[in-house]
């Protein structure tokens, strides 16, 4: 035993920490990343376990107990965060609202991620005409005002969860395309790509097993950014009355519903907005942290 440990420590001394150990150290040494990840995981658990965690039915109205204040403003524990203008339990609506935000963020980022990554990688790898077309499409997309187009399309097609997710997914691919294009261009010039080409690997194979793994860290960072972006946009659309429709418990919609009573019951607006802020902040912190953790050489 003794010899093994001496052997191990000797080995450590010669070779230094392994890449996995270094990664672990960077992850746990990065406060922003840790905080963001923990908050995001907690909110995801809350969203998944919503039926078991919510004290009440988020849709159940009670005209007898409308706009009861939260506990910290003199309310009772029956409704810890009070009730809204229809007497629905605010905490339960918040908990179910996490499902809407996270679902929209994740699926919209997935759709736009697939579209944008396909376009960006194709443009970066093939260059020439493909690149010109993709660059043109990115320019067109950037010129369109996102909020306005999303509002108009949702209004025409009717506000529902599917429509909102679809519209955001089809609109938010621009950053994926821009970043993936630039990353692919960098990676394409590396020796291992040339080596794969020389040994006759097929183009799909090069893209999937040489290019993709080496741009994956940038991709994950953009996924977090766009997820946050989609969540904020959904909230804004719902706030403007042209996103997810009532009685669905969307945080943006809750702010909008509380807006008219803001003068006397400001917590109706403050609570859902604060939760939204915390979720988006957590995702952004995690994204920024991921950028530092996966690419320490790019740290500014």
């Amino acid at each position: 035993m003794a010899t093994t440990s001496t052997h191990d420590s000797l080995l450590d001394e010669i070779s230094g920490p392994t890449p996995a150990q270094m990664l672990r150290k960077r992850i746990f040494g990065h406060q922003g990343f840790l905080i963001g990840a923990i908050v995001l995981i907690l909110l995801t658990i809350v969203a998944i376990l919503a039926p078991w965690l919510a004290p009440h039915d988020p849709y159940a109205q009670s005209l007898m107990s409308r706009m009861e204040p939260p506990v910290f403003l003199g309310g009772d524990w029956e409704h810890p965060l009070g009730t809204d203008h229809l007497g629905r339990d605010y905490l339960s609506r918040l908990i179910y609202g996490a499902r809407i935000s996270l679902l929209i963020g994740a699926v919209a980022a997935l759709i736009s991620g697939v579209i944008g990554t396909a376009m960006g990688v194709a443009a970066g790898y093939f260059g020439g005409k493909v690149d010109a077309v993709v660059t043109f499409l990115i320019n067109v997309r950037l010129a369109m005002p996102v909020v306005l187009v999303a509002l108009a399309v949702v209004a025409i097609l009717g506000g529902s969860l599917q429509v909102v997710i679809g519209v955001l997914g089809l609109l938010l691919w621009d950053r994926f395309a821009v970043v993936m294009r630039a990353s692919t261009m960098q990676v394409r010039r590396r020796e291992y790509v040339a080596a794969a080409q020389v040994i006759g690997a097929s183009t799909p194979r090069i893209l999937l097993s040489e290019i993709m793994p080496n741009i994956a860290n940038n991709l994950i960072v953009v996924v977090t950014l766009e997820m946050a972006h989609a969540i904020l946009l959904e909230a804004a659309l719902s706030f403007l009355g042209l996103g997810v429709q009532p009685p669905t418990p969307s945080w943006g919609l809750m702010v909008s519903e509380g807006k008219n009573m803001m003068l006397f019951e400001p917590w109706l607006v403050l609570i859902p907005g604060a939760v939204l802020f915390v979720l988006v902040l957590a995702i952004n912190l995690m994204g920024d942290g991921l950028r530092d953790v996966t690419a320490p050489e790019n740290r500014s």
Partner: protein
Amino acid sequence: MLQFILKRLGLAILVAFTVSFISFSLLFLSGDPAAALAGETASGEDVEALRRLYGFDRPMLVQYGDWLFSALQGDFGESYYFRLPVASLIADRLSVTMILGVCGITFALLTAVPLGVVAAIRPNSIIDRIALFISVAGQAMPSFWFGLILIVVFAIQLGWLPPSGTATWRHFILPTIVLGYYAMPAIMRLTRAGMLDVLSSDYIRTARAKGANETRVMFRHALRNAIIPVVSLAAVQMGFMLGGSIVVESIFALHGAGYLAWESIARNDLPTVQALILIFSMFYIVFTFLADVLNAWLDPRMRTS
């Protein structure tokens, strides 16, 4: 330089035409625009009459050509709701949005650039941390929520500023902050990164070695070079902000083009929506074009790309 400008101009025009086609196609997203216009209670004959009246019975490309030709002459048709020419309707409202946009970007630049510079001069100092916090919080802050909080605090609780409307310059203060805060993080990050980059360059060392005092080094040598990308970012952000003014205008009831867009969307007033999407896109295209040209003029290395 001329070649660069012409190339960018050609691209901008091509983008503009594509955007115009997309915003026109929105009309057909609902399936049958005549039926949508007539409403659910209309009879089949009414729908047919409307279809002929508005020319929806013609091929889509012909309608597009017609619309585009009129639009190029400044005629965007008649608003379904207001029964007024869309062009004059938008012209009336655009000044509020433009004022808000200019105020917003000015506010963003006046706060973000100094913060970014100080953060770069003293990395990891308290000011750097505050700047970082503002930029991280700014990206996560839902603008409609931020606006409502400002209304509660400054208009209702303290009573310092009016909560909504456009009557005086004081009505623009809160909307300017909300809109400007949206552009601040990006500008601050770019200023900070640019300054850090420039400060470690050879010519700054040379300037210091010559004995130039620190203020002169910072402003005459460093900031002048670091600010170049910020100028073009500000132009691009300005384009984004005009498109984003829809949320801010609806919170503060500023009757600008963004508010008009919101009203028109809610009322299914498609000619107005089409025209507004096109106009906001044009602003973005013009601003990015100006940013590109400005960049190329300030930094000759950019002209090759």
